[in-house]
């Protein structure tokens, strides 16, 4: 009888320790789970010189598939001779996409400006953005996400300055 009571005691202690461990482990892992849940591409529209540029996370599956399709069909630009497609100028200077969460089918980073694409995935290569389709798609999504200032939107509509 005494032995049975001791066994019961040990069982409860063990049960308590295991439950506590599981709880603690879950608590520790919770933020990591949230981080893992993040997906999509970080898109930065290069507009400003002083202020931070507008960014958004592109998560929409349809757009991601559309983008993947356009990128896979983009032809290599053999004639591009500059170091980067992003110009050192004031005003709009292109779009940079960072694949921070390793979305399958995309390079780690790519940049687009007026028909030229720069792919960075270990090595750098240059492609052609036919009819500015990729740039147009990303700018459209930036506008829809509401990250572009109203003043700039008006200027875009009016084709102001350049």
């Amino acid at each position: 009888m005494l032995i049975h009571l001791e066994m019961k005691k040990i069982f409860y202690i063990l049960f308590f320790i295991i439950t506590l461990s599981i709880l603690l482990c879950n608590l520790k892992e919770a933020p990591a789970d949230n981080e893992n849940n993040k997906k999509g591409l970080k898109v930065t529209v290069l507009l400003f010189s002083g202020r931070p540029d507008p960014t958004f996370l592109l998560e929409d599956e349809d757009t991601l598939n559309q983008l993947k399709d356009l990128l896979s069909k983009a032809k290599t630009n053999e004639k591009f001779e500059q170091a980067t497609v992003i110009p050192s100028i004031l005003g709009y200077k292109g779009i940079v996409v960072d694949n921070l969460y390793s979305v399958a089918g995309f390079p780690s980073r790519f940049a687009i400006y007026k028909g030229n694409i720069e792919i960075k995935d270990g090595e750098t290569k240059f492609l052609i953005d036919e009819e500015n389709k990729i740039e147009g798609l990303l700018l459209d999504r930036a506008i829809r996400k509401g990250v572009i200032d109203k003043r700039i939107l008006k200027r875009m509509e009016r084709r102001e300055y350049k």
Partner: protein
Amino acid sequence: MMNKKPFSYLYMSALVLVVLFTAACPLKVVNVSAPDINCVFDPSCRITVTDSSAPIPIPAEGTNFLQSRTFVGKPGSPANGLYGYEYRIDLRNAVGITYIPCISSMIIEFGPVVSTLDYDGDGSSDQVFVITSGGLGSIGLASADKIGNEITFTFSSPVCAGGRPGDGQSTYFFGLVSTKPPGFVTAKVKETTGTVYNVQARAPQKCGIPPYNPSYWNDGGTIQHNNNCYNYANNKRTDTYAQPGRAAGAMYSNLTCTEVYNAAIADGLVPLPASGNCPDGKAKIALFVDPGVDYHWYRLDRGGMWSHKPGATQATNLDNSGNPISNPETADRCGDWLCYTDFCGYLCCCSDEIQGQGHENIN
């Protein structure tokens, strides 16, 4: 014979000028005790110091170093807002290998020395103090001589390493005061044999004009993507996309000339004097605003031309039309959807000749 006289007068005058400029100017050195000396810098006579030390490459084993100590004068003290600098050469644990090395003097580029403070309480102004009681060390100063921006501290007797650890010597702390905050410099420490060693120390920061050398900024990575036009104009890498006024807790709220200009002044930048030239070796920078949208800065490089860094892109010396920038006010500052139409003015910042090493407190 008569014609030669004006030339000889001219020659003599030039000689006198040369002698005046190169002559050593002895600084007034007084002995003080700790903690009394702290009362010059803090009404409570307790100072908070920042220490750094660098080894002196003398032929010795064990440890030896030049210690630099800095602190700021607190409100209510005679040195309010000024920067205190103290130095000490410590060879106590240095052990000579083939002979016992000794140090006779130290030269440091310090710039203007504050000469209005009374360190020993005798009612007259002093320039250099030596803490001969209440602190470390046993060797004081024989003299402190200033030539141009350099000060030579000659020790009252050679500071020597020992035959075994703990047998070496240390100077007392010797100090002086500047209006400028500290930066890193290379001090020269002279052995009695005549050998001179370069040792890192801290002294009042020296402003300089940077050359146009964009490769430092155009790394295609961390530096390029995290430093904007304000970083570039100030020639200071922070990797934080620095914003005017943020470091001072006075960031602009609206993108107007007045607000961004005043935010930069809160960071410590100074408006350009009427002369059109920045004082104290500071660098000239220019501010423009696209009202309500963004701001942009240019900097004047050594050589007289301007350059800029449009946001996270590469630094360049060309404007939006691809022309070199001789005057930012006439440069093409309009691109797609943005145009920096409003010229806000010129400011002066404490930049540096080395890229990314500017001295303004921006963030």
